[in-house]
Each structure stands twice: as structure tokens, then as C-alpha cells.
């Protein structure tokens, strides 16, 4: 029998036994019928916040991956000189570029490969045999020390090769911008969700205090400070939010794991690849939820206590 339980049907216990088993009761009652609904709402908000966090991490990885792929390669468009065949010009360009530091491989693409690249844009019929076909040299670059476009251009000029270098910087810029926007959007959703949770908790904290004014009054008259009472309320809601955060994070982790399993190494989709390590980003969610709840509940309680005068 708990020392705090009702006296009804209590087996007699000695004072010594009581004192040994005694633990301080909660000065603000632990919970009521509204707590279940509130916990559910906070859990759902935590779930969405976790999805936003997962989205931010995955979109960051996707952007980094694409950027790395583009940074590791470059394309050179070769224009033959008078009296020089296209194949010979391409071969000479490849040979010139292979000697540049940071170029792992320089490979002249055959005519049919260049045609294959153009076919989706021009159609098969338009690719007549006598159509002057630009020749391309594909470069694979050292990912740690890739040469810049200017360096490649300088090497081509030195080798007397008329060519244009595309180091994919235009695409990389777009991808980096898209990655930044994706992360910002995910962060925005995360912050909005946290604010929504804070607002719900602040409202609930006021409701809890308002429904227990008599307890608050007794605590006040017995010498409790506003900060102490607000702290009791904050701890109560922090504990609730921690449990809700745990539930929301677990659900989001299960969903993330599902995406990973269904999609293999690329996650469900290459656009948003989820890795196992990403699930670790959800670990702080319960603590964050508890922190947000504590701050919101404390602030709301302090305001209400001041209003009470």
C-alpha cells in the first residue's frame, strides 16, 4: 500500500514503516482526463517535426551527392580546326587534358555516343550522317583536387585546341540553391511545428492552473514563490511532452526505417535518400519536446500567476 493512498481499506502500518516508505506527493496533481488528448496532440506534432528533420537531413544528403557527382566530372566540346577531322581533334583534346593535374581520365566520346546524347532533343530522323556533329571529351576529375575550368581552358589553349569547357558550375549552383531551399523549408516546418506545440502546451498549462486555483492559492499562502509554482507546472508538462516526443519520434523512426528498407540504398526515392544514420537525428526529439514544453508551460504559468496578483 502506498503511503499516499486513501485510508479506506488500509492495512495498519506503523509510523516507522510509513516514514520509511514515504515519498513526497506531487504538489500539483499529476494528471487528469485532458492529459491523454494533449499527449496525443503533442505526439502528432512531434511526429511531423521528426519527419521535417528527416526531410532536411535527406535533402541535404541528396544535394551533396548530386553536387559531388557533378564536381567530379566535366565535359569539353571540341571544334575541329581546318583540315582536321573531328575524331582527330577530339583525340588531341583528350590527350592534352589527360596531362592536366587533377584529371583522372580524359575520354573522347565516339560519334555514336554524341548522337545518342542528342537524339532525345533532335529526334532520330534529324540526325543525318552529314550533320556536323560536335565531339565531346568526358573528363573524370580527382574529387579531392579537381582542376578549375580556367585551368582546363588554359591547357587546351596551350595545346592549340579549339574547345569549350563545361565544368557543370551552372548546374551545381542550381542544385546548391535547391538544397538550401529544401533545408530551409524543412527547418521552417520544424520550427512552425515546435511553435504550434508550444502554443498548445501554454494553453494547456493555463487551463491546468486555472482549474486548480485553490491549490495555487494554498501554495502561495504557504510561502511558495511564483517561480516555484511555475516550475512545478513546467516539470509536469515537460514529463508529458517527453513521453509524447518519444512516441512521435518512434513513429517517425519506424516510417524512416520503412522507407529505407523499401528503397534499399537509395531510400524510397533517389530524390530523398534516407540512410540508417539519419534516424539518429530523431533521438533528441523527446528532449527538445520536453524543453519546449517546459519553457512554454513556465512562461504561461508565470503570466497567469502575475495576473492573479
Amino acid at each position: 500500500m502506498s503511503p499516499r493512498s486513501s485510508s479506506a481499506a488500509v492495512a495498519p502500518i506503523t509510523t516507522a514503516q510509513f516514514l520509511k516508505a514515504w515519498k513526497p506527493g506531487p504538489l500539483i496533481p499529476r494528471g487528469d482526463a485532458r492529459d491523454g488528448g494533449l499527449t496525443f496532440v503533442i505526439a502528432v506534432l512531434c511526429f511531423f517535426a521528426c519527419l521535417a528533420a528527416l526531410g532536411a537531413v535527406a535533402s541535404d544528403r541528396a544535394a551533396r551527392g548530386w553536387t559531388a557527382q557533378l564536381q567530379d566530372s566535366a565535359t569539353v566540346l571540341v571544334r575541329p580546326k581546318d583540315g582536321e577531322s573531328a575524331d582527330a581533334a577530339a583525340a588531341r583534346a583528350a590527350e592534352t587534358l589527360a596531362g592536366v593535374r587533377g584529371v583522372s581520365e580524359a575520354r573522347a566520346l565516339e560519334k555514336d555516343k554524341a548522337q545518342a546524347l542528342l537524339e532525345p532533343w533532335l529526334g532520330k530522323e534529324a540526325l543525318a550522317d552529314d550533320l556536323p556533329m560536335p565531339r565531346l571529351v568526358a573528363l573524370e576529375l580527382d574529387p579531392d583536387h579537381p582542376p578549375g575550368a580556367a585551368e582546363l581552358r588554359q591547357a587546351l589553349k596551350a595545346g592549340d585546341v579549339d574547345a569549350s569547357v563545361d565544368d557543370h558550375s551552372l548546374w551545381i549552383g542550381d542544385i546548391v540553391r535547391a538544397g538550401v531551399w529544401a533545408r530551409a523549408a524543412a527547418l521552417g516546418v520544424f520550427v512552425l511545428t515546435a511553435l504550434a506545440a508550444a502554443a498548445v502546451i501554454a494553453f494547456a498549462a493555463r487551463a491546468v492552473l486555472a482549474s486548480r486555483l485553490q491549490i495555487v492559492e494554498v501554495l502561495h499562502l504557504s510561502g511558495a514563490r511564483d517561480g516555484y509554482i511555475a516550475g512545478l507546472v513546467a516539470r509536469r508538462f515537460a514529463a508529458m511532452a517527453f513521453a509524447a516526443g518519444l512516441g512521435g519520434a518512434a513513429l517517425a523512426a519506424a516510417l524512416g526505417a520503412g522507407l529505407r528498407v523499401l528503397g534499399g540504398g537509395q531510400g524510397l526515392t533517389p530524390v530523398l535518400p534516407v540512410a540508417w544514420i539519419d534516424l539518429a537525428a530523431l533521438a533528441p526529439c523527446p528532449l527538445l519536446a520536453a524543453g519546449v514544453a517546459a519553457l512554454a508551460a513556465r512562461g504561461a504559468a508565470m503570466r497567469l500567476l502575475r495576473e492573479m496578483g
Partner: protein
Amino acid sequence: MSRKPRYSPQASDADAARADPEPVLRFAGVGLRYGRGEEVLEDVSFALEAGSFYFLTGPSGAGKSSLLKLIYRAERPSQGLISLFGQDLSALPRRQLPLLRRRIGVVFQDFRLLDHLSAFDNAALPLRLAGRKPKAWKNDVAEMLAWVGLGAKLHAMPQTLSGGEKQRLAIARAVMGQPDILLADEPTGNVDHEMAARILRLFVELNRQGTTVLIASHDLDLVARSGMPELRLEQGRLVSPEAGA
């Protein structure tokens, strides 16, 4: 130490201020009205010395409970000055109220026990709020509850207690923190004569240890038996003991 209240119904604020330099409690021309209603208290002036023991008597509606509320600052006077432990209660900043209230023990007429806490936790409330370690007071609380006849009900929840038991628990809570001043509003209203005498002995013992005691009661027999002086209120005004006798 004089047991006679320095009673001066006609005293001005200035007269009251010139009284004993350090009374524990001083009312000077105090009035109280709730909202725009009639005055519940009117021009009340008196001073209590440290270690004194008074009954506050008067018929129902005379303003006894309202006067006590002013002392623990549950209400503010509509006029006049109240000084407690040398501090002007009206000017006391809100952040300093908790420390002041820890020096006051209050037995409320309606008990105001916390229904979600056991009798033991209710009695221990002032000690917990004062931040004292349970190890230092656990036995004291159990002894106090035993003294007021609740030794077998340490774990009992207030809603399972009788009216008299609740009253004794409220008294135990009020005195646990060894307050400098004890205010009790009809503390023997729900107990039999034997328990009333026992509670009175507890108050007297506290008073001997230096606690100033002010008990609001309409039990004139108890007041007479105690031999303690009284402040008598009638229709919100303090009248002389002779006039109220």
C-alpha cells in the same frame, strides 16, 4: 509583557505610527471594502507586540475573517496602513511575499487542505516549500499529527477525514513551520470541548515559545476559559473589550 492590546479606536494614523516602535503587527486606520460594496472593516487600529496572544471576537459578519485576510495579504486594505514584522504590507513587492508568508501560520476556516495529498504531505507543506530536507522534519511531522490525534491517519487523504480531523490537520499544517505569528480562523469550530482545549494548549505552548497568536473565534466560553485578552469587532469596527463584554 503586556497582555492588553494597545487599542485606540479613535487613534489617527500618525498616533498609531508613534506607538511602540516595533510591534509585530500594527493596523492604523484600516478599512476594507470588496469592490464597490459597503465597508467590511472601518478605521481599525491596533498593535500586537511580539509574543502576545489575542482572541479576535465578534458576531458572524463582524469582519474577523476579513481582518485575518488582510494580515496574510490575501486582501489589500482600501484605506489605512498595515505593518507586519516592521514591513508595510501595502508596499511590499510581490516577490517578497513568499518569505513573509513563511513566517505566518494560517488555519483557514474552510481548512483549505490539498485533496490530492495525504494528511502527512498536507502537514509537511510549509516545510517543503521552505526548502528544508525531509530527513530533518519527517519525524516532527509524524509527531505533530500524532499530537493532534491523527497519528493513525498519516496516509489518509483529506476527503476521507471528518470535519474535526480536517480542522486538526489544518492546525498541524499551520504550526509545523514554527511561524512567528499564527492566525487561526475559528480553529475549534468543528471539534469537541476536549479537543478544543487540547488545541488551545498547543497554541499556548507555541505562544510560550515566542509565536504571536491571533485567534478569530465566536466561542466566548473558550475565550473566557483561556484568560487571554480579546480584540472585539462589531460591524467592522474595533470596539473596546469592555464595550464588547
